[in-house]
């Protein structure tokens, strides 16, 4: 039992508990903070795996950028707290829970019977250390072997950005006509006023 194994168990258990907390909180902001906690633990596991660059990207992009995006939208929408309302689907939650635990048991059964043999691709820690560190080797590998997927990913990000802007843009005229809601869900006078 080396130090790294003990740390892996600690961070893994914390990540799982953070995830369970994130999907059970009523308050969205509490759930988001627990999710950030989970992502930080996953970043720690990346550190233990010696994927240093990915650990930093995990912290900067996931726990930083994406979660700040969520916070911004939660702040902009000005959600009321859903304290009294039911948080889960009444009919389907027990079915979903049982089926998910069955799938987990299936995963564990399959994994318990499998043995993996390492192929040995040559990127040992000694090789990476001799060639200028993990970030340099990672970058060379990324821009040599994965150049086309990298460019495609940039196009995907551009399309997502343009799509998000067009989706949330308000129509200049006739926008009010398309704004319909269920009769039972009439906004309060204060909210409707705020919207105009």
């Amino acid at each position, binding site marked *: 039992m080396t130090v790294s194994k003990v740390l892996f168990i600690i961070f893994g258990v914390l990540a799982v508990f953070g995830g369970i907390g994130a*999907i059970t909180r009523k308050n969205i902001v509490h759930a*988001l903070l627990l999710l950030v906690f989970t992502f930080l633990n996953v970043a720690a596991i990346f550190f233990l795996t*010696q*994927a240093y660059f990915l650990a930093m990207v995990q912290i900067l992009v996931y726990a930083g950028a994406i979660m700040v*995006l969520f916070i911004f939208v939660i702040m902009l929408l000005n959600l009321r707290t*859903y304290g009294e309302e039911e948080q889960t689907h009444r009919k389907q939650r027990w079915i979903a829970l049982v089926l998910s635990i069955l799938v987990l048991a299936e*995963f564990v059964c399959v994994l318990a019977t499998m043995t993996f043999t390492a192929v040995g691709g040559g990127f040992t820690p*000694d090789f990476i250390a001799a060639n200028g560190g993990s970030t340099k*080797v990672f970058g060379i590998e990324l821009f040599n072997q994965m150049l086309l997927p990298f460019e495609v990913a940039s196009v995907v990000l551009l399309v997502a950005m343009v*799509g998000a802007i067009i989706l949330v843009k308000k129509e200049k005229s006739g926008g009010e006509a398309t704004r319909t809601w269920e009769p039972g869900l009439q906004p309060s006078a204060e909210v409707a006023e705020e919207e105009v």
Partner: protein
Amino acid sequence: MTGAPADMPIPVDWYLYLSAVLFIVGAVGVLTRRNLFIILFSLELMLNAVNINLVGFSRFHENLVGQNFVIFVMAIAAAEAAVGLAIATVLYRNRRTLMVDLFDRMKG
């Protein structure tokens, strides 16, 4: 840092078990919660579980393709978060709620 972890690497099974548990937690979140935001959080959790798998196997096979792939998963996750949040904004603007079972206009 090249000392102990290099000599005794963490078994690849451990990554798989951790990733399976995190994935199932995310799946339970997607299937049971009514709030659209929590469903988006659960999706991020599932994508992270996949990333743990990729990194663990990348270390196990001493190959960097898995780590490179994680970058693309993160890019797709960012795009998904941007578009998902835009859709959530529009839905909230039109319907004043984020409970997904109330969006039943198409009788799904």
